[in-house]
């Protein structure tokens, strides 16, 4: 197990590579999700406001 983490002495190069990949992969999933949520709530708020003004 320890050998696995040591990666033959190259751990300082191998694991940051995989970590960066993970960060980038997760980041590019979260960003569009948040973008969509923000747009939906923006539009919903405008609809509510328009409906309130009509009353």
């Amino acid at each position, binding site marked *: 197990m320890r050998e696995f983490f040591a990666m033959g002495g190259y751990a300082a190069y191998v694991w940051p590579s995989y970590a*960066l990949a993970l960060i980038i992969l997760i980041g590019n999933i979260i960003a569009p999700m948040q973008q969509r949520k923000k747009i939906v709530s923006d539009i919903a708020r405008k609809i509510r406001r328009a409906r309130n003004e009509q009353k």
Partner: protein
Amino acid sequence: MNVFMRWFHKMGSPRYFYTVAGKMIPWFMTSFVILLLFGLYYGLIMAPPDYQQGESYRIIYIHVPAAWMSMFIYVVMAVSGLISLVWRIKMTEIFVISSATVGASFTFLALVTGSLWGKPMWGTWWVWDARLTSELILFFLYLGIIALHSAIEDKRVAARAISILALVGVVNIPIIHYSVEWWNTLHQPATITKFDKPSMDISMLIPLLLMALSFKLYYGAVVLMRARAELLERDRNTRWVQELIEGDAK
């Protein structure tokens, strides 16, 4: 052929695309995760260490798929741009900007993991050889596309402007690909070509291909997610969007 053309035609309709894409995303995501896990397992645990490079070669399972994606996404982006300019299809316009950030991310990943691999192997973080330089230029091209899109206020104009920019830059892609053949570079030449037997052992090749395929599925999921968001943004005042949001709110 008729079925395909009808489907393609329907995908041009924003409302249809939004719903269908929403259903496709989970499939892309799950298959991405499954292939990723298999690729990581075979790459990190099952594949033997390299006789020359030891364990450090395992960076290949991130670096090479990321580099392949950086070029693949740019080509998809340029083709979408071309279609959107010639046929004025809104969905292909949206695909250009939807691909830009994830493409830039993969280029960045390829560059950084390349440095992390180069330092123990070649003794240097960076060298100005043909392949690294052209990949760096690719990164700047992506950034330029993102910057131009955000600088133009009218997003329909912005989408067409970046389509042209993407097309202008596509000449860089063959340069990256053939750079190791045309110049004497420090970067190693291609080990995987379409027609020859690859010079890589099969136990190392399989995880590499698994990772590459998983990244492609990831791109499919992410580009659809971003396209849906961009579509909502552009069509925010149309009836189908209003109905959709109201329907969700109830």
